[in-house]
């Protein structure tokens, strides 16, 4: 997994609540092995039925095109378990989402892919969005080492995430590596379990 330390880039405000995983990438757009999955991010809103960009969609506007940070309404990423929703975001180049809350599976999937899902209260998220909209350049810095979001015109917002998540992101560490070191504990659990719950094991 790619490390996450300090991210500086354009930030795009999409303040609608309940932006779901079907919005982020439609099921029809994620079937099979997809090259350049970032091109399919927000497929329905971003392109018309002929595949041309819709000029009114915010990421199609020069000011926000190529954003690295997304500021969103509550319950972002609710809906399906598709990790392709995270891959579409990271494929596009977005590595941080700031929202009041998330769909749970999306929230987990984000961490597994080095996408930082920051949680802040509604008022603070609204303030960040307003700062971005009002700035000459919508550029924000997200500093995971210091737990700081630096807004375009000198504003500063603090955030925190669970320490174990922070450590993993800073080191670019995969969870699988942790799991694989616990083979012995697993062996003894399974040996005991086979005798205690034989029905689980098809006996």
């Amino acid at each position, binding site marked *: 997994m790619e490390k996450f330390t300090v991210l500086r880039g354009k930030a795009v405000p999409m303040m*609608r*609540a*309940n932006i*779901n995983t*079907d*919005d982020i990438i*439609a*099921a*029809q757009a*994620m*079937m*099979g*092995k997809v090259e350049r999955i970032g091109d399919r991010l927000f497929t*329905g809103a971003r392109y018309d*039925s002929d595949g041309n960009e819709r000029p009114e969609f915010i990421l199609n506007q020069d000011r926000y095109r190529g954003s690295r940070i997304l500021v969103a*309404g*509550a*319950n972002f990423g*609710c*809906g*399906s*378990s*598709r*990790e392709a929703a*995270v891959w579409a975001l990271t494929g596009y180049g977005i590595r941080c989402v700031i929202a009041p*809350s998330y*769909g*749970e*599976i999306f929230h*987990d*999937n984000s961490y*597994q*892919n080095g996408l930082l899902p920051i949680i802040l209260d509604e008022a603070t998220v609204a303030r960040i969005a307003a700062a971005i909209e009002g700035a000459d350049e919508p550029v924000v810095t997200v500093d995971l080492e210091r737990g700081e979001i630096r807004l375009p015109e000198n504003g500063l917002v603090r955030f925190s995430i*669970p*320490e*174990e998540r922070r450590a993993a992101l800073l080191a670019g560490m995969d*969870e*699988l590596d*942790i*799991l*694989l070191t*616990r*083979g012995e*504990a*697993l062996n003894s*659990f*399974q040996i005991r*379990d086979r005798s205690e*719950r*034989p*029905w*689980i*094991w*098809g*006996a």
Partner: protein
Amino acid sequence: MPLTLFEKIWNRHVVSEFSDGRALIHIDRHVLQETTSWQAFDALRERGLPVRNPELTHSVIDHSVATHPGRTADSFPPTRDMILAMRRHCQEFGLRLYDIDSDRQGIVHVISPELGIAQPGCTLVCADSHTATSGGLGAWAWGIGTTQVLHVLATQMLLLRKPETMRVTFNGTPGRGVFAKDLILHLIGQHGVATGTGHVVEYAGPAIRALPVEGRLTVCNMSIEFGARAGLIAADDTTFQYLAGREFAPKGAAWDAALPEWRRLPSDDGALYHRELVVDCDAITPLVTWGNSPQDVIAIDGRIPAPDSFAEPDRRAMAERALRYMDLTPGTPIEGTPIDYAFIGSCTNARLSDLQEAASIARGRKVAPGVRALIVPGSTTVKREAEASGLDTIFRDAGFEWRESACSMCVAANGDMVPPGKRSISTTNRNFEGRQGPGSRTHLASPAMVAAAAVTGKITDVRRLLDAGEA
């Protein structure tokens, strides 16, 4: 200390604990579907790892396969590669696969209970958000992402932080025309799509106890639309009767060993939950959704709400957008809205009892002119059983299409789609923009309500047809 059902299951599955409060949890059952596993197998191969416990793993093809009779992997070219890859991966790693032509094939959350893969007190995961369906048997079942599929394939464990617990008690007796689907839609309508977030939800109370297992599966299915990854119902004699004799359910001595443990699972008296909600079922009428979020629920005799009836600016904006997308006018009754499609299918409502309820409305009636109505059984077993009792004939005579089992129009990833601008009433779980196809408009309802709309051509209070009896 008195424990909840969930805490007992959690404790039973802790392999080891970390000082930061996380734990490694053993996974008893891993179920795979073809659209979310491909990359996990690639990663497994890259790292040179075997599947840790193939005997605890089941795979099925359901999301992307066509539904017309005689279908093959080639029937819908955009997903052909994915189906072939699933076959390759299962063979390479020695996993059971319920392929397109298997008797065991069906929607992953329909076959998990049906084959007895899911059992009370077990942990069950699948890279699919409706995995909680199996909670209807008292399993802790939840949806995971593809990276976690890799974790389970490689280690049969997941690294988790303990979720909080919530109990929702359903009191009272649902009236006529009110089904399990209405109970869960009502909860989501009252409390919204995010209330369950961070919780494992236990559904309890007399109205839940009175439900047959298939209805319990429907309730647990939509836990994710309530925000919760897992929802479950304590197992009881109804559960045990349902499970006995199923293919992967314990038999003989194993059954005798399991039963006392299963009976110890229900929450102890006085166990504490982080949150409690109560639902009064007497007040629930048949329901239908009007917007693009499962919380946009109204009674069938209700009127389409005006955006400014919502206090929060957020909800108001969502309602405005939804009314435009759905092409509905505030203040008009929802009943009478003309429909183009009626879809009975999905892991929410395509089990045998769902088809029976729909058939009792369709019997002796005809699908209204201009309406396309589809029945897509939840599994191949459901299809066979329905055919054995003549339900297919009732539906065919009424003008419904009778299809092979798959996810179909629930997610529109197999070629079955509602065309842009067309209005569908559906037994599925999500009414998101574009869910049933780009530009499609979806109303969620129970199977009986969908059948009633199919035969009248418009959204209809199913109680009117119950009153009318057979046509």
